[in-house]
């Protein structure tokens, strides 16, 4: 099956536990949505590996429902960048939060 090449998989899904998992910082992402560009294709909320996104009630000027962050998932984004990469409309991007 295909490898979607999620950066996060390297840490979570390899089955090979790192020697000290606590030494690994899980990246934290901040999602930005450019609502008026969205065409509601659903790719971002379908392919987010952390299920952070869902369709919102908001209707943009072209009649589409852009994504929003699900309740309770406000700090679940791991900045993998999949939503940004897969959005055909340049309507979503993620910023990695650097916290020391």
């Amino acid at each position, binding site marked *: 099956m295909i490898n979607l090449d999620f950066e996060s998989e390297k840490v979570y899904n390899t089955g090979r536990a790192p020697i000290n998992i606590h030494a690994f910082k899980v990246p934290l992402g901040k999602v930005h949505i450019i609502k008026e*560009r969205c065409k509601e294709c659903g790719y971002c909320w379908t392919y987010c590996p952390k299920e952070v996104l869902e369709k919102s009630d908001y209707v943009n000027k072209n009649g589409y429902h852009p994504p929003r962050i699900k309740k309770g998932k406000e700090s679940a984004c791991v900045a993998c960048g999949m939503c940004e990469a897969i959005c*055909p*409309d340049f309507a979503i*991007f993620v910023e990695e939060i650097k916290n020391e």
Partner: protein
Amino acid sequence: MIEEAIHPKDIYLRSDRFPHIWCPGCGLGIVLKSYVDAISKLDIPLDHHVLVSGIGCTARLPGYANVDSYHTTHGRAIPFATGLKIVNPELQVTVISGDGDLFNIGGNHIIHAARRNMDILVVCVNNFNYGMTGGQHGATTPEGARTSTTPYGNIEHSFNLPYIMASLGASYVARWTSLHVRQLTKSIMKAMKMKGFSFIEVISPCPPNFGKYNKFNDGLSQMEFFYENSVLDNNADLSEAYIDFSGKRPLIVGEFVQRIRPSYIELERDLIKRAMEEP
């Protein structure tokens, strides 16, 4: 969340033209994303990039990228690109155009560019139909597939693009779907570093035309088909890598050809040198 945030890739786009004209779920925006992602990561100066297309939905793509671009006549992207490269070999010349444009009306040009191992990169976005003009079938429409002009199913054999390109001697041949966005970006970056003719086929959803006639009600259902049926096989027997949407055969993707073979520009330089040295 900052609503007015500017997309980090906007500097590589003609963002005043957004939202773009493509339909919801159309894969073309993803190809544009991969292209701008690739040029943003490479060390080639932006003013060395040229993007060329013919006519069609795909051919609108260069109009959205903030590099020098040529939206040429139907089927003739390759001759324009060839001319640009020969006159100024410093340029990174990339053609991004549709299956109909490159392999139906422009079919003759692309086979000769591959045969010559011309130093250009061609990205063919294959949506298996003429999207812009209402979904007519063409040489890339898979056998059995329905389109607006083959309502009972296409009876013709279709072109198997990587097989054709590999047989003609292209230096680099790959195929991805619009779901393989990261692999596509890496592929474009690699192809831009290769000498000679590089070819990347991108299988892409066209929901209102090809999709509608083939039980893909939206872009997502065709992306799910890619997800379930794609098989990565860099060593695939390309004669078997043709596409059908019956779900009975794997959709083979990968980097099939990477070879070093004298390119047209190299051979031409060598020829000029020899001619000058002759008494």
